[in-house]
């Protein structure tokens, strides 16, 4: 039973991990993008639509990534080039993205004459199956090596992002821009370019998270009204929980995923707590983490100093 619970937690945490990794990339470059929910919704639609018509998982993921990039491009143009308020731009992107997904989702339903459904072959390509050899190991085989391919992809993306961020020159430049764009500018880093690249990259990763929701969680059927349903917002909260580090986000998303399925795995005849309590838990923990990190005042695990402030060269 406990094994099943952990397995379900990993599955529930995967879309969050995508969203969080994407948002970390964005925030590390000094821009806070509150449009995660919207970018995920757009990714959910494009991923499903492409998978529905082409039957190819690779193309579906590429399309979801692509639409995430386009959505983030809107945000980047508005905030980096035109220096609009980042919070407002992000919130607007959320509203826009949800509208975009629902509008085209409805058109897709109308064209299909009923809820569109992914083909059997497509569903087989994203089904959970044990990996050869590793999947046969006791306990770990089921827990770690019997997932759908997107779970591995999410962890791979998170690890690659961390290595890139902490171990490469480009990653160092990006962190410099996020902490102090004026200083980065003075050393000859092209601040605008760095911001653009990472905001777009982050948006694309968020789009992948959306694709996970529509392809895996929906069971292969498009639900127009509530594909994303707040997962994007939880991802934003998870960024704080993970203290801006994608590898920590792997564990964070596992914990948040565990909280979201906990209500279904706690035996109700033993522990009687209303479900609403379990729904509240992730946010309660985030609040506590915020308090603890602010008390510790560690430079490592705090928000990039330049985050939320647009950089205007002439004003430095």
């Amino acid at each position, binding site marked *: 039973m406990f094994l099943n619970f952990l397995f379900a937690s990993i599955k529930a945490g995967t879309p969050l991990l995508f969203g969080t990794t994407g948002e970390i990339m964005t925030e590390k470059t000094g821009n806070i993008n509150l449009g995660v929910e919207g970018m995920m919704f757009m990714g959910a639609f494009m991923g499903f639509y492409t998978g529905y018509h082409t039957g190819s998982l690779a193309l579906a993921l590429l399309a979801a990534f692509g639409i995430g990039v386009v959505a983030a491009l809107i945000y980047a143009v508005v905030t980096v080039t035109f220096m609009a308020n980042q919070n407002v731009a992000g919130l607007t992107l959320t509203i826009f993205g949800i509208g975009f997904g629902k509008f085209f989702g*409805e058109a897709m339903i109308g064209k299909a004459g009923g*809820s569109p459904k992914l083909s059997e072959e497509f569903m087989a390509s994203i089904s959970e199956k044990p990996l050869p050899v590793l999947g046969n190991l006791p306990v770990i085989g089921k827990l770690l090596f019997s997932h759908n391919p997107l779970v591995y992809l999410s962890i791979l993306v998170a690890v690659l992002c961390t290595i890139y961020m902490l171990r490469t020159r480009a990653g160092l430049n990006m962190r410099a821009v996020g902490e102090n764009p004026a200083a980065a500018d003075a050393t000859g880093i092209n601040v605008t370019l760095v911001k653009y690249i990472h905001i777009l990259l982050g948006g694309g990763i968020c789009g992948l998270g959306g694709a996970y929701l529509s392809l895996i969680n929906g*069971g292969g059927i498009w639900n127009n009204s509530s594909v994303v349903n707040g997962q994007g917002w939880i991802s934003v909260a998870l960024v704080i929980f993970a203290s801006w580090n994608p590898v920590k986000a792997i564990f964070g998303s596992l914990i948040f995923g565990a909280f979201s399925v906990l209500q279904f795995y706690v035996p109700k005849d033993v522990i009687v707590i209303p479900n609403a309590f379990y729904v509240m838990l992730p946010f309660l923990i985030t609040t506590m983490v915020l308090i603890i990190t602010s008390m510790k005042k560690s430079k490592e695990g705090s928000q990039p100093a330049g985050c939320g402030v647009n950089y205007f060269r002439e004003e430095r």
Partner: protein
Amino acid sequence: MFKKLLSMIVVATMVLSLAACGTKKEATTETTATETTATDAVATEAPAAEQTTKGIPMEDFKVGVIHIGDPADGAGYTFAHDQGIVAMQAALGLSDDQVIRKNNVNDTDAVAIRTAIEECIEEGADIIFGTSWGYMDTMEQLAAEYPDVVFSHASGYKSNGTNFNNYFGRIYQARYLAGIAAGMKTQSDMIGFVAAMGIDNSEVTGGINAFAMGVESVNPDAKVYVKVTNTWFDPTLEGQAAEALLDLGCDVIAQHADTTAPQMAAQNRGVWGCGYNSDMTKDAPSAHLTAPIWNWGVYYTMAAKAVLEGTWTGENYYGGMAEGLVDISPLSANCAEGTQEAIDAAKQKIIGGFKIFEGDLYDNQGNQVCKAGEFISDADITGAMNWYYKTVEVK
């Protein structure tokens, strides 16, 4: 100095624009006032005409529908209602412009409800159906304001005896039949039920109890395990709840929830399920057994016809299997052998007067909830059923 001047100008503009708004508002109220008098004038004429002809000429007849969602969703609650409207339109031979649909009307926003309904009235609707619980009070008020329009509201309980009533049905009868299909299919004698709402919601709870009694009627050893999502529509949560039930060892997943996610979860594990609202066999062909469904067209056709012919009475409507309002979708090939016969027999029994909640019944705490020779009234089933049947367990 300049700044002061500027701020004064800004303040002045704001005051002026406010004043402008004020006058505009007055103007609009005036127009609505004249419009109301205009409708009043029409209204006073109308009854005179009605008294002679009794009913409405076919070509003038219009039907309004207020939907909480969008029929374009292609499945689920609003879709099921709209299929009923389509059936009514076909049965009465109405043209498309004789049906006025207002979609996505939030049922907690009284202003939006009023606007949507008044738009229908302005377009000439003779009968207006409201499909969601929250429309009830607004419809009641409007029924008093527009005595010549008939207001019919789903799932509530109020009525004014003339031009406002409520309609709903005994969906628990269909759930009993679905329970038979599930009870005959299960190998592990463990059946999962994904419930949108907890024990306090008697619509859901009554459905679970009827389902469990259907299961028990063919398989006394089987138990029904319930997990509550606390939402009517969330594919992620519903899927997770279903998977948790499957992890317990359940091999049939039933649901009172709007999405197909629980059925898809059952299909992915290679086991079985019973959907709800629409026939989910097309979504989960290798898992789905049968689903309790609504045929709202039965009521919509009857009600619209009554208004059209002038025989409308304003009584509340509470239909069931005998009227054809509720039923189960055709059994899929996944059902166990003999299911069709067992269900047909039970269906005949229900149509013949079997109440389901009758006789000696106990809840899962061991309390007697119904005595031998008695039955539970429909009012209690829809409004006050806050206990689970003895084979039901919340997990």
